């Protein structure tokens, strides 16, 4: 067991030190360089002198204070709403005999396939005050006049609602998984001591689930805090900015890079702080699983409430899933998006325009596929190397490596975009305008979850197998290739697919870093949104979701069903 570490006797040259040095250097370039420039810019005036003026502007100018307040309002509301939805729903699927509970669980996870900005566009089609299909339905049913609306998606409430739609599944997965793992014995003991079903739920189950719920609330808060797409699509038409859309607008002409950097820092600091808080909360979760093996948690019999419970679950699912996809399909095949398509009006003109008429479609698809496959391959490889070094404590300095590999988790996509823009538009790495800068962004964003997945996979492979290889004279790299890698195959494939999917849907970093020749699918959809070409947007969004779904299904086949759940580790937007 003690062969690991720098003191191990070596036969021949061991490549692990150069590899470690190379990986370290790479991570520094990936993470430290852009973040360093971000900090430098945040404390610089436009003519390059050190100043605190950017922060004075940030915290006194109403143009910035308002977005900060709005962003916090949105993030807190989304955190609370997500818990209010996810907790009962998670409890229903994990601990009750609700019919179709497995299907409901799968569908909630499936709703995560939808990129949040696509969800926002779909909800615009549903709940724009006048043309929204739901408002039209409401007017048809109630006979309300043409200028009255039930729902207005162009509002603070609308933004909160849409973000919550695509964030609560993360909380749901955390809650449902925690309830799955909760020891049945505690509840058994409670009922043996005479407590009724509901009393047990109230006094045992809920308190045990609370830390998870709190962690979930933090995840939701972070998602809402750092999301760019949904507010860009809904808040700007409504006449307000969030911090992310404000940062993005600073890239307009003339660009105000110093302010953009300064406005990015609070997001970064808050995210780091909240991630630490989350780690603390989740760390305390240990007390819910004190023993080794527990009995299956017992299911609560809902009795007459089974059908109402299912109805409730389906209504919740309609928000991120059934309704938006109905709207996207309607728009894709309808001559005018605000009218319901029928067999008489069904048209393929949007499909034809998107794939034949629109000259950016194919280049964007090519760029997206190139980036997704390359980022997935290099990202998985990098994560594999880091996970190996850290898991086997292969060389001194592995802790720093683990830290660097996890650090990007705290960097919101748009902040990373700003940092990379600042870091790579100058020598020594003039990468702006190439696909490489996007590649770097995507690998950096996905590295933490890829590393975490492969790290846990390494723990499952017993080191003795590798030690045997080493004792028989193989170098460390050779052992890794011949013994460890094959054992990790399914985890690596799942990681690859996970990165692939995440890259396809990434918008917030790409929107800062793209140029006309390096446009990706998500940016193309966003561009089309700004000129209101909803037909093409619907077609491209459905195509995007179809590709993503195919890859996830494939990953589940190969990777043993864990890939979809792993998507929960990090969202995009």
């Amino acid at each position, binding site marked *: 067991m003690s062969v690991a570490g720098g003191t191990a006797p070596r036969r021949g040259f061991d490549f692990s030190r150069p590899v470690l040095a190379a990986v370290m250097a790479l991570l520094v370039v990936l993470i430290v360089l852009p973040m360093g420039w971000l900090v430098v810019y945040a404390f610089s005036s436009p003519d390059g002198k050190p100043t605190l003026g950017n922060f004075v502007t940030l915290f006194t100018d109403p*143009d910035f204070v*308002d977005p900060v307040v709005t962003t916090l309002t949105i993030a807190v509301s989304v955190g609370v709403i997500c818990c209010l939805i996810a907790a009962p729903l998670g409890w229903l699927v994990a601990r009750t005999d609700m019919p179709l509970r497995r299907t409901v669980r799968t569908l909630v996870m499936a709703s995560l396939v939808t990129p949040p900005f696509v969800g926002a566009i779909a909800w615009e089609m549903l709940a*724009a*005050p*006048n*043309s929204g299909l739901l408002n039209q339905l409401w007017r048809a049913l109630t006979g309300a006049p*043409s*200028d009255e609306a039930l729902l207005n998606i*162009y509002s603070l409430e609308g933004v909160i609602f849409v973000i919550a739609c695509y964030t609560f599944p993360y909380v749901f997965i955390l809650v449902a998984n925690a309830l799955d793992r909760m020891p049945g014995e505690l509840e058994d003991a409670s009922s043996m001591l005479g407590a009724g079903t509901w009393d047990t739920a109230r006094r045992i189950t809920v308190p045990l689930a609370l830390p998870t719920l709190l962690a979930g609330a933090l995840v939701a808060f972070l998602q809402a805090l750092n999301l760019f797409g949904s507010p860009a699509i809904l*808040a*700007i*038409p*409504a*006449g*307000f*900015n969030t911090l992310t859309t404000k940062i993005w*607008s600073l*890239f*307009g*002409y*003339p*660009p105000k890079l110093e302010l953009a950097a300064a406005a990015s820092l609070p997001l970064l600091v808050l995210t780091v702080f909240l991630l630490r808080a989350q780690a603390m909360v989740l760390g305390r979760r240990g007390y819910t699983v004190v023993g080794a093996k527990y009995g299956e948690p017992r299911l609560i019999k809902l009795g007459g409430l089974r059908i109402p419970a299912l109805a409730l679950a389906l209504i919740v699912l309609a928000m991120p899933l059934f309704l938006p996809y109905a709207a996207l399909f309607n728009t894709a095949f309808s001559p*005018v*998006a*605000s009218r319901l398509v029928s067999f008489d009006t069904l048209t393929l003109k949007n499909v034809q*325009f998107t794939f034949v*008429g*629109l*000259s*950016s479609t194919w*280049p964007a698809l090519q760029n997206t596929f190139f980036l997704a496959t390359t980022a997935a391959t290099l990202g998985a490889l990098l994560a594999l190397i880091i996970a190996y070094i850290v898991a086997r404590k292969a060389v001194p300095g592995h802790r720093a490596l683990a830290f660097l590999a996890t650090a990007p988790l705290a960097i919101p996509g748009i902040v990373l975009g700003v940092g990379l823009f600042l870091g790579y*538009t100058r020598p020594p790495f*003039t990468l*702006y*305008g190439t696909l490489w800068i996007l590649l770097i962004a995507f690998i950096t964003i996905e590295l933490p979850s890829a590393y975490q997945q492969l790290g846990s996979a390494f723990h499952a492979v017993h080191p003795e197998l590798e030690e045997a290889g080493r004792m028989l004279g193989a170098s460390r790299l050779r052992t890794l290739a011949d013994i460890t890698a094959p054992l990790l195959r399914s985890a690596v494939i799942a990681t690859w697919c996970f990165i692939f999917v995440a890259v396809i849907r990434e918008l917030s970093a790409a929107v800062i870093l793209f*140029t*006309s*020749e390096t446009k990706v699918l998500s940016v193309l959809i966003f*561009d*089309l949104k*700004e*000129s*209101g*070409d*909803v037909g*093409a947007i619907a077609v491209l969004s459905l195509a995007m979701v179809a590709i993503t779904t195919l890859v996830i299904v494939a990953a589940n086949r190969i990777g043993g069903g864990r890939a979809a759940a792993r998507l929960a580790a990090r969202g995009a937007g």
Partner: protein
Amino acid sequence: MYRRTLIQAAALLPLGARVVSAAPPPEQITPELIEAAKKEGKVSYYTAMDLSVAEPMAKAFEAKYPGIKVRVERTGAERLFNRVAQEYGSKIHAVDVINSSDASHFLPWKRQGWLAPFVTVDMAENIPADMIDPDGLYCNQRTHLSAIAYNTKLVAPADAPKGFKDLLDPKWMGKLVKGHPAYSGTIMTATQQLSRDLGWEYFEKLGKQKVLQVQSATEPPKKIELGERAIAVDGSDYLFWMYRDKGAPIEVVYAVEGTPLIHNPMGIFKEAPSPNAARLLFAWIMSAEGQSFIVDLSGQFPAHKKVKAKAGRPELSSIKTLKEDPEAVEKQADEIKAKYARYFKV
């Protein structure tokens, strides 16, 4: 040897400078140019024109000159300006031909020496002289207006606004949609004209009307077609007409105060990656054939004297228009964006 080259180069300099500062001699479209363009095989066309016109136009060019692929890069003119600045700032020379709905953009591009002169014989004969830059660096491709329009299902013609001031009526609160001057060149140009003629108080009041703020001047027509809002404060007039022709319940209003006039100049970049294809595309768009294509499809006003405006549309001379002033737009652009953001909160 090296020294002599330097001296020769120095001797050539004044000549070169003279050629740049004078209008270039009009050029013919030679078979050699077509051949060289085909060898390049592709051309990038940055434009602010709606995709429903720009993409078919590009396809028509591709059909005329098989083997040359046009990549249409469409976004708002202000975004295009920013994109070109960012790309050129990083020495990325991706743009061949640019066509902006904000004529003021060509002033700094010209000053920076980024544009290549190009005038065809046909242009010299058939494009009004005041539409061509004296140095031949750019030329107005077409003209359109930023018009008011309304959805006739939501507003009865009798109640319809007659001009911009009517839009301040409280009864239109929450019923207006408009584009954004930090995105759209059409809206930037229109905002400069309206703020000059009606004063910024007008926009301050308009900002309190709960306007649905979209980005592109091409989107208000789409929102009116959908019925999402009753009245568009601004927007590309040709799209209102195109949707109306398709049967959408839209009426266009030419404001009593006058309608903002938008020229759409086009130029070729000196560092164009496909200089020959760029010239061929430019020449074709400015030819009677290219101009007719744009007019027949969209009904915008042509630059070419031999091409007639689309039948069934009001004549440009019959519409009271506001005066376009690119020099003023260039000077005021930052101020316009800042004031606009203050009054409309985004």
